[in-house]
């Protein structure tokens, strides 16, 4: 019961924060709504017994990535930007397509039936094996190749960023 209430709170609050995030014209406010969104997402991870993922969600997304966004936002004049009426010529077409996609999604969700997905990671397994250990075992056995490929892609991106930023090394 309490779990449902918590889920309801986190889900509704995350949705509200997400909508507020995309609808603010002041970028700084949008970033703060995004922070609230990340924290509520972490709450949903906690309800799924994924403490480690929840802590990483806050540490990486809210603590590092969003701070980088804030850096960029800080260097802009947010108030001047908020005054500019941002309306692109293709906005009508884009909103039409988005509306159709949204309608399709609503129809599919309303028609479909949902069965809970049962994965290998149950609450009992997590409790006996440990939260971090479970993630580590999955990463270094089943998903070793995607994990290594992802790290390689990140390395490439990093090297590329440094090359672009520093012409003379």
């Amino acid at each position, binding site marked *: 019961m309490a779990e449902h209430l918590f889920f309801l709170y986190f889900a509704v609050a995350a949705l509200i924060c997400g909508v507020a995030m995309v609808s603010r014209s002041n970028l*700084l406010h949008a970033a*703060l709504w995004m*922070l609230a969104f990340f924290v509520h997402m972490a709450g949903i991870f906690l309800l799924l017994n994924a403490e480690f993922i929840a*802590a990483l969600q806050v*540490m990486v997304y809210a*603590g*590092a990535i969003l*701070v980088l966004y804030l850096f960029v936002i*800080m260097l802009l004049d947010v108030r001047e930007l908020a005054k500019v009426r941002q309306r692109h010529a293709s906005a009508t077409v884009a909103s039409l397509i988005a509306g159709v996609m949204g309608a399709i999604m609503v129809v599919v969700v309303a028609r479909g039936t949902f069965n809970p997905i049962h994965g290998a990671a149950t609450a009992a397994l997590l409790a006996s094996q440990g939260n*971090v250990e479970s993630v580590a075992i999955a990463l270094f056995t089943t998903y070793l190749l995607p994990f290594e490929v992802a790290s390689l892609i990140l390395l490439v991106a990093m090297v590329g960023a440094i090359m672009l930023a520093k012409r003379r090394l």
Partner: protein
Amino acid sequence: MWIDVAIKVGLAMVMMLIVINIAGIHSWVERKQSAVIQDRWGANRAGFTFRAPLLRWLNPVMRPIIYLGLLQPLADLMKLVAKENWSPVGGMKWLHASAPFFYLLFAFVGFSAIPFGDTLHVAGRDISLQVAHLNVGFVFIFAMAGLGVYGIVLSGVSSNNNYAFLGAVRAASQMISYEVTLGATVIGIVMVYGSLDLQEIVRGQGALLWGWLPKWGVFVQPLGCILFFTAALAETKRIPFDLPEGESEIIGYFTEYSGTKFGMFMLADFVETVMVAALTTTLFFGGWQFPYLHASGFVFPWGAQVAVGHYGVVAIQVISFLIKVVLFCWLLMTIRWTLPRFRYDQLMDLGWKRMLPVSLANIAVTGLVILLIEAL
């Protein structure tokens, strides 16, 4: 159910009491210790004398308290609270007011994962002396410390002041830079004790190396300890890493703050200092462990034994944790009043080009040594 909640609330209150008191006393220590280091008298005036004949005998008792400046924090507080609640012209009023709140909040929340004692058995219950027993304790603390950046960034952006803004940019980049080193140094500790749970890490430090040396983090990770302490010092943004604040010139991200809001920034700084001391104690100096103290009492390596009751053991553990934390607070304060300030490029060089590679090498060497020990 309700009694569990009550126990948790009680633990949280105890932790809050510890932190608030140590942080509050810091404002007095900062005044008086800096005075002693710089050969001054320091605060020795704040106080009052009783005129009423019945209370006049209290005056000689009050005199040493006044000379020690012990009433100065109260005077400071009264001054801060009585000031005008002001927000800068052309600034963002709400964000300006919420910045110190965010900063102080995230400084406090991390303490919930710090264990200040082992399990206490009372009335058939096992109470782990830690507010929140988290499987991922130290990741949680680092996440909360990382969120502290928001308070700084908000204060800089919302102040409508270029100096505050530059201070915020400097502070945010400094905190991000040193967080990397901070995280990398703790990996070594996690590898040695095999857990992210701070209570488990502290328990692991109760073992003995070669039968006599406590297996504290500082003995198995000496390099990690030094790197961690330095990086953590940079995280508190105090001298020698005080470029974002510039306390002596008051040109930093809190330039446009006064009164209680400024007081909150100041308090959060002291709370961060306590946090650094508590983390260093927990990770590298045995947390609540007292050398040779076991659950049944002292067992010395030369064979002598002193039996201590359960409550006695828990009391010694909590007091030992507190003494270590206070000692590190004193060390941080001494460093703050002894060293000069870094230049900004030196600061970034130290963080990225010296400390980060060394801490990464530390991880590799730790891994190799652990492999060797397991192979033998």
